[in-house]
């Protein structure tokens, strides 16, 4: 649910133009404020740009990648990157033990990472959020049952479960997604339930129930919009974690299987050539780290953006520097008021 108004009350002949802008106007402003806001946080801007590039290259991989990632050329095997001795501009980042182009493999590997990452976030997120909403809103026995299932599964080692399933079903992209989803929904369920419990206390939820809204409507219209902010941040962080997990599984040989490739798998293959061809490990390694780092940068910006107090503080700092110079501020101590402290820590605790 976005902050901008749903379209059904926008437009329309009776709308006072001063009060409500046109749909485009409101959206345009929202986009502009989003861009302005992220621009202030340079790390997040870079992170977001990197992720966008990643998505772009993944989607258009066949057009961008110079070679087929699986095409072998034994004559060109273990060629170093172009700037090293013996490198060639035809293989910018060099080739692997079978003469496959490392750059192309990175681009196609990103495809798998993003696919697994977003599929797991979507599946686990949906399942976890639904379970959390159900548990938190219904409370009582429903809550107890769902949360005990979560507790029990949390206590069970996730990797072991993954290994068992992969051993039985056999590794493939869809099994990896399944396994990681099975493990991933727990955190969504917990965070959602916690958020629901606090939003449920709000007077407007009480009011909606009082006017006779059915529970599906109460959850959809009143509870869910109030909990999206922490969930979006969580999803971005989870996305980074899933990419790492997929790499780990693939590295162990339980994830993506050749001829498909992924960054984790490439690291595993390159491991054997660590000393004479370190680029085989370094490039996919860098790709993994940068993606995870970028996602974390974006997440930490989102956390500030969705915390009104932190936002106002940063805004005030900027304006005052601009308007008054630092001399204009008198006696502003670093003392934190209690409410502010509570708000800040609360924000941190939910994530």
């Amino acid at each position: 649910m976005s902050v901008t108004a749903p379209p059904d009350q926008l437009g329309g002949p009776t709308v006072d133009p001063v009060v409500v802008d046109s749909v485009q106007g409101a959206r345009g402003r929202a986009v502009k404020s989003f861009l302005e806001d992220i621009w202030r946080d340079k790390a997040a801007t870079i992170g977001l740009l990197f992720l966008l590039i990643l998505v772009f290259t993944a989607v258009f991989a066949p057009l961008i990648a110079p070679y087929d990632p699986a095409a072998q050329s034994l004559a060109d095997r273990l060629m170093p990157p172009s700037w090293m001795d013996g490198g060639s501009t035809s293989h910018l980042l060099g080739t692997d033990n079978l003469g496959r182009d490392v750059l192309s493999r990175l681009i196609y590997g990103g495809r798998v990472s993003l696919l697994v990452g977003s599929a797991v976030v979507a599946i686990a997120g949906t399942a976890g959020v639904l379970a959390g909403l159900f548990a938190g809103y219904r409370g009582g026995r429903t809550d107890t049952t769902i949360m005990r299932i979560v507790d029990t599964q949390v206590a069970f080692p996730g990797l072991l479960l993954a290994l068992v399933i992969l051993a039985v079903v056999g590794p493939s992209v869809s099994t990896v997604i399944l396994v990681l989803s099975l493990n991933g929904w727990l955190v969504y369920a917990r965070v959602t339930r916690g958020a629901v419990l606090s939003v449920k206390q709000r007077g407007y939820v009480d009011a909606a129930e009082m006017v006779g809204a059915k529970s599906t409507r109460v959850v959809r219209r009143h509870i869910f919009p109030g909990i999206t902010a922490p969930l979006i941040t969580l999803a971005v962080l989870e996305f980074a974690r899933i990419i790492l997990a997929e790499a780990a599984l693939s590295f162990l040989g339980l994830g993506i299987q050749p001829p498909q490739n992924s960054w984790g798998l490439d690291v595993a293959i390159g491991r054997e050539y660590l000393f004479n061809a370190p680029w085989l490990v370094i490039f996919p390694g860098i790709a993994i780290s940068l993606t995870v780092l970028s996602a974390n940068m974006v997440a930490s910006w989102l956390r500030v953006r969705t915390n009104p107090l932190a936002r106002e503080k940063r805004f005030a700092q900027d304006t005052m520097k601009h308007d008054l110079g630092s001399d204009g501020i008198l006696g502003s101590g670093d003392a934190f008021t209690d409410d502010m402290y509570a708000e800040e820590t609360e924000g941190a605790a939910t994530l």
Partner: protein
Amino acid sequence: MTEVRKEPYLLEVKDLQVSFYTRRGIIRAVRGVHLKMERGETLGIVGESGSGKSVTARAILGLVDLPGAITGGDILWNGESLLHGKGAKARARKVRGKEMAMVFQNPMTSFNPLYTIGSQIREVLKYHLGMNKKQGTERATELLSLVGMSNPKSRVDQYPHEFSGGMRQRAMIAMALASEPKLLIADEPTTALDVTIQAQILELLDDLQSRLGLTTILITHDLAVVAGVCHRVRVMYAGRFLEKGSAEEIFGKPGHPYTVGLLKSTPRLDELVPRLYSIAGSPPDLRLPVTGCTFLPRCEIGEDSCGVTEPLLTGKKGAREVACYRSFEAESVIEAELEAEWEALARADD
């Protein structure tokens, strides 16, 4: 100058300005507040939410934090500035917390839930008075019994959550008194409490004030609370004082239309009127520039000329001052209006 004061005021606030830099605009929450506190007096500041009364208190205590900032004026403690000049910062640090202390509205958030009340009071004693643990515990127990807690010896070792609302407020007052402050600022100390508990806490504050010779500033939205406790009263609206005087003067003969309106719209326990007076409209948006009287849009006796320049407090200096071009004219007008309305109501009932 007819008279030269030998001793500086305990606290003097000169033309204090506090603004909040929000994304929706700059809110000028406090727009030039002047205040002089004599030793041992109790001052009541009355205002509605957004009037700037709490922000004033926080500014005095150095608790204004971003997005807010003090943008002008001065705060003097014993004649020395806490804001400007050499050593002001160090001085402010020494004075704030030790010589002035604050009691907040919500006692629950002011205590750390993980430590006992005793250890939190001990911490203050150790920091400001250098007491060791044994002395600290003894003094903490004394303080708790000073604020009227039964069984202080066992209370010292209890945690905040084991205290009821009223008890917590007492404990907070005890903690505020631990550093032996000269000035106590109580910001809505009873708003979160039940009325019978409120009566207990107000009595305690009154009692402490006379026993310890404390200088007290009581900030509240409730005129009735001020009536029983304070010597002097100031009414604050839109970031400035509109009226000052003794409690008897202000309640007996309110000078500003806003004060009259507040008094008339507060339902009284000891009289039943057919219909309450209500001040129309709501307070001004302090992001917009102020032209003329801030109360004009809601005023019953306002004239066009009131909208030109903002009226300042005028009257006998140091005693009764009202910031209104038509001071003391509102009461009779509003009373006549109310009576007419009541008569009309009575006629409609027949």
